[in-house]
């Protein structure tokens, strides 16, 4: 009964979405206030219906209802409750439901926080989001219904893929989807502005907080996924250039470009057409990411389904959304008009260069991800493009982008004389060049790549420190007043940029100085790595809720002093009969010590892999700083004032 209620709620939600997607848009075109007024209640009703559907599915999981096909395929009676709930988005159908839920959550948020928008604008935005929702609801109801019954019911479920049975599964997908789907707001605002022909600075100001919030979620989501892969996959990598990762990284790159070009559009009125195009691209890439991950075209753990009808549906949906919005852009863009003029050397030009580099980087990722698929689909044979391609493309593209990031905040809008810039940046340049030369000499083995990485990391950190210094101490006022005087969005920028520096530093150091050994160990054997002694004390059998495991105990000491104990596990999930490596990690601010069990060899020995990962945590700390910077920018007075002003009216 409960699953049928969920199914019925989805059907109702689709009907409401039709109302939300059509009447307000027509009403806005004809100036019909009643039709425009339908947008808000429809958005809220749709949200409640999808929440109901989502709870019905979650209930089916919690209550172990194996007469529902999706529940039977993705959970098991022995699966702990938190993973049974997370299993709601563990497969294809449920993750689409999560997508739709999050879309309606953003829509409802827009309906509440849009009091300051003109009625026709709000009606158009909500309608565009309703149209997107139609696509997803229709998709679920036609080819991938999460509430489909299994008759007769299964005795027990087939269990969730053991790779997904991890706390990461509870946070990572919702975070990522909040980011993906969040770009739908910027997209809808752009489309609404194109439809209404209302492309002024106000449109950029509405778009900015939504875009930043989506970007914060996406950054956190990608960071959580990277961290999860690091400890779950057992080989110590944190980024694999896997097609699924690329699917989330492309919208991030374009989204990062978008938040910067939105700043220019709001403050200077320039880049309008480009900003609209980026907003369309960011969301299109999010849709493409969903298509890549969820249609089964990829050969990856995330691609659960292989049903050609689904692929066809999403493909048509993509063509309609992307093609339609680009056509609208081509039709309306000439009316947008030119923005303010700027010089060859100015803050605008630096931001433009940063935008172009980010966009080109996104295109290069797109090429590496899609070309093998196209070639395969056209019968051109199977090829793969691995990390070497992405590495060799990314360094030359991102190095100038990161360098310009240090210069940009010092440049004035419109025109920034080069000599003045050089004068202001000379100390930062000196510090970073010196560090890039000296630090590798101390740590060992100078190479151009280490030099470049360290130069960029310290360049960002030094220029940002210089920016802080000049803002706080050179103005003649006390620094306390200056701290308060600086806007939160300025602080957000400072912290996010510092985050990039920390990130680059972490990547450079871990790539340059990580070490690993793979050894055959009997209990009592000692392995040596990076000055540490790893002693395998023994391997014990332990039982988990739905798995049995061999748990190794490895004590780590340095110069005879015990530092930590690692407990790597080799699990066997009993339902799916899948083995799973669970790494033993001792995280630290300076380095991680990481061990994973390979296989049991004859005579009681184990193959063991041990890693030394210096500054690896800085990669994720850097990402969190970027996300925190975004949150600070969001809390800026300007956005609150805007709201208060609207309420006063």
């Amino acid at each position, binding site marked *: 009964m409960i699953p049928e209620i969920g199914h019925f709620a989805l059907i109702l939600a689709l009907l409401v979405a039709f109302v939300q997607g059509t009447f307000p848009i027509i009403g806005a075109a004809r100036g019909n206030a009643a039709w425009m007024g339908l947008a808000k209640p429809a958005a809220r009703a749709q949200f409640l219906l999808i929440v109901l559907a989502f709870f019905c599915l979650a209930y089916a999981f919690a209550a172990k209802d194996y007469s529902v096909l999706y529940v039977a395929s993705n959970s098991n009676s022995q699966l702990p409750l938190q993973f049974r709930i997370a299993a709601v988005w563990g497969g294809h159908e449920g993750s689409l439901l999560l997508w739709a839920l999050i879309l309606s959550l953003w829509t409802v948020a827009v309906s509440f926080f849009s009091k300051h928008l003109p009625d026709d604008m709000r009606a158009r935005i909500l309608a565009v989001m309703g149209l997107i929702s139609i696509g997803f609801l229709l998709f679920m109801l036609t080819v991938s219904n999460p509430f489909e019954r299994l008759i007769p019911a299964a005795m027990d479920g087939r269990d969730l893929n053991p790779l997904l049975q991890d706390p990461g599964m509870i946070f990572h997908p919702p975070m990522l989807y909040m980011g993906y789907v969040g770009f739908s707001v910027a997209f809808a605002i752009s489309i609404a502005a194109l439809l209404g022909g209302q492309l002024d600075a106000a449109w950029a100001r509405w778009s900015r907080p939504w875009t930043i919030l989506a970007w914060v979620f996406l950054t956190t989501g990608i960071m959580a996924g990277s961290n999860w892969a690091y400890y779950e996959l057992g080989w110590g990598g944190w980024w694999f250039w896997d097609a699924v990762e690329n699917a989330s990284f492309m919208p991030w790159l374009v989204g990062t470009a978008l938040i910067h070009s939105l700043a220019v559009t709001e403050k200077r009125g320039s880049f309008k057409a480009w900003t609209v195009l980026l907003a369309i691209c960011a969301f299109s890439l999010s849709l493409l990411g969903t298509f890549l991950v969820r249609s089964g075209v990829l050969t990856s753990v995330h691609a659960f389904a292989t049903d050609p009808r689904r692929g066809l549906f999403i493909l048509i949906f993509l063509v309609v959304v992307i093609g339609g919005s680009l056509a609208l852009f081509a039709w309306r863009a000439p009316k947008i008009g030119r923005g303010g003029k700027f010089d060859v050397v100015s803050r605008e030009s630096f931001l433009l260069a940063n935008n172009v580099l980010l966009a080109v980087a996104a295109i290069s990722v797109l090429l590496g991800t899609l070309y093998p698929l196209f070639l395969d689909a056209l019968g051109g044979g199977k090829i793969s493009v691995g990390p070497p*391609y992405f590495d060799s493309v990314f360094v030359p593209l991102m190095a100038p982008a990161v360098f310009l990031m240090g210069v940009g905040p010092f440049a004035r809008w419109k025109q920034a004389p080069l000599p003045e810039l050089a004068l202001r940046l000379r100390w930062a340049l000196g510090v970073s060049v010196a560090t890039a030369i000296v630090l590798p000499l101390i740590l060992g083995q100078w190479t151009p790549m280490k030099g470049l990485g360290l130069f960029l990391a310290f360049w960002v950190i030094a220029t940002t420190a210089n920016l802080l210094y000049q803002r706080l101490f050179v103005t003649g006022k006390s620094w306390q007043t200056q701290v308060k005087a600086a806007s939160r969005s300025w602080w957000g920028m400072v912290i996010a940029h510092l985050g990039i520096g920390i990130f680059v530093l972490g990547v450079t150091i871990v790539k340059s100085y990580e070490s690993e050994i793979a050894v055959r160990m009997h209990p009592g054997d000692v392995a040596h790595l990076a000055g540490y002694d790893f002693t395998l004390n023994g391997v014990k059998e332990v039982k988990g809720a739905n798995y049995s495991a061999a748990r190794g105990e490895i004590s780590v000491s340095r110069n005879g002093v015990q530092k930590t104990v690692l407990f790597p596990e080799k699990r066997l999930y009993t339902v799916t009969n899948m083995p799973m490596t669970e790494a033993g990690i001792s995280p630290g601010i300076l380095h991680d010590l990481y061990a994973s069990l390979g296989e049991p060899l004859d005579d009681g020995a184990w193959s063991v892999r041990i890693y030394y990962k210096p500054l690896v945590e800085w990669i994720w700390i850097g990402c969190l700083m970027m996300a925190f910077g975004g949150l600070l920018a969001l809390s800026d007075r300007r956005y609150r004032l805007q709201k208060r002003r609207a309420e006063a009216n």
Partner: protein
Amino acid sequence: MALKARHKRFILIAIGLALVGLAATLILNAFRSNMVFFYTPTQVVAGEVPQGTGFRIGGLVVANSLKRDNDGLTVRFAVTDTLKTVPVTYKGILPDLFKEGKGVVAQGKVGADGIFVASDVLAKHDENYMPPEAAEALKQANAKNNSMQSNAALAAPK
């Protein structure tokens, strides 16, 4: 030496185009030199594979072919598409889901002795899942097998 606005815009556009052109060259170059092609065991045995550059093979791990060297880390196994079999060596820890009789994809180079030295071994992600490359190799072998039966004269062993 104040430049006219038109000239400035022109310079900006020219610089932009030059940079985008440079980036495109760089990307396409990197792409060409890092493409990894896929071959079936039959093609490897027939010598239709590049020498000196890496490629991927896929197929099934032959039952009882897994042997371990004394260091406990170097493994030897054979990959088959049911027609031909390629011996593979790999130093390192095999993925969790590597099993004899199941699908596998390996990336590496083939030596003069015909042994495939793998730098990476990828296995399927769950019990029911076959890596597409491995499935492709079996499909091709199957098709070839059928055509051989119908035209036995052409199927002289190499």
